[in-house]
């Protein structure tokens, strides 16, 4: 009796117990005539078991506090109503402030629809990573040079870590996040009252002007602008004037007709 040819994939499936029952007889018959294959598959199976055993024996890092915190955040996000949708709605409903244009409905509508992804992400990241004072930072303020080098390599652009001590803001640290598949650097600052302000930087090309634009998202205010090849988003529960002043310090151009 001639047997249908056995394919290599079927031999692999045999090793993994994923071969359909109907083909097992054929594979067994094949192996009956191919002792070399029996030897080979036996080794595959042995290596597979050994691999699993060795990998399972790898001593896991003692509960890394960052991992634990991320786990808790993820659990919250998975069980919470859609935060992002809420953000978008809030952005649409909330008064959108552009200096000098605040009464202009059409312009507001237009602006709501073109809030860059980065700004939504920056606001979200402020809530998740910036506002919580217990959350450890990935890169501490002690190593601004290292932080700068790390961000520069990931963003593909030279990134300076701004020192805002003159504005009464202390750098707490930073971390690297992703917005729409692009790396986004987040820097966290704190004022003397313990209020936090986060600055996000991205090298993703977006259509953003060099003049700061302000948008209110829930209780947060975000200002964003472009400078060279980088887009900046500054987020906090900060009065507009203060946000604009800090942004100016960072290189943003002030809105021409701001009060």
């Amino acid at each position, binding site marked *: 009796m001639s047997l249908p040819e056995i394919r290599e994939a079927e031999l692999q499936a045999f090793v*993994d117990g994923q071969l359909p029952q109907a083909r097992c007889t054929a594979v067994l018959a094949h192996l009956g005539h191919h002792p070399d294959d029996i030897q080979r598959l036996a080794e595959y199976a042995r290596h597979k078991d050994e*691999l699993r055993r060795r*990998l399972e024996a790898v001593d896991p890092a003692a509960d890394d506090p960052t991992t634990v915190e*991320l786990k808790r*955040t*993820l*659990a919250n996000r998975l*069980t919470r109503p859609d935060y992002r949708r809420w953000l978008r709605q809030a952005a649409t409903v909330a008064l959108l402030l552009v200096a000098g244009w605040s009464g202009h409905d059409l312009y507001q509508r237009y602006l709501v629809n073109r809030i860059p992804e980065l700004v939504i992400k920056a606001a979200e990241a402020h809530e998740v990573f910036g506002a919580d004072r217990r959350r450890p930072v990935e890169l501490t303020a002690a190593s601004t040079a290292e932080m700068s080098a790390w961000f520069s390599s990931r963003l593909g652009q030279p990134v300076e870590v701004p020192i805002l001590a003159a504005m009464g803001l202390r750098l707490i640290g930073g971390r690297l*996040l992703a917005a729409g598949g692009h790396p986004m650097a987040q820097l966290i600052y704190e004022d003397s009252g313990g209020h936090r302000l986060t600055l996000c930087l991205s090298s993703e090309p977006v259509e953003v002007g060099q003049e700061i634009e302000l948008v209110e998202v829930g209780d947060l205010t975000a200002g964003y602008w472009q400078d060279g090849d980088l887009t900046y988003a500054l987020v906090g529960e900060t009065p507009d004037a203060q946000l604009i002043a800090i942004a100016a310090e960072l290189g943003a151009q002030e809105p021409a007709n701001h009060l």
Partner: protein
Amino acid sequence: MTSQAVIDQLAEHIASLRRYAFALTGGQQEAEDLVQDTLVRAIAAARSFRTGGNLRAWLFSIMHNAFISGVRQRRPPTVELNDEATAVAQPPAQLILLEVRDVLAALARLPEAQRAALSLIALEDFSYGQAAKIQGIPLGTLMSRLARGREALRQMMHGDLRVPLRVIGGKP
């Protein structure tokens, strides 16, 4: 589902992810970094997870993407080699006579794609279909990576073949 129930589930999944991350990166710190990168991405993408979906498979596919984009963008991965492996002088043409009895050291020498296929199937009871989906490749590609990876590993464990040494830290 309550948040605590999800935390408990996640704890289990994270332990699995950590093992896969170790298989991919070859180092404990690198593995933990990859786990954290995965969780950050999962947090950002939490809305895309459908309630009742396969949380474990979802997390694994996020980790796979994180690993792939990390390989492309990040510093070159460092692979911890054991002494017997690194002590061998490297002849020209990047060929080396391997005598690797350690299955983890052999795994670390496989090309990334084969290493991913092999370790995912070894570690987790995913079906081939799920594993292919997690790695974002067609089923046939997964099967051929699995077959080639297993054979390369076997040859290395025999130590009787010349196997191209994977260039660490450079372009593949």
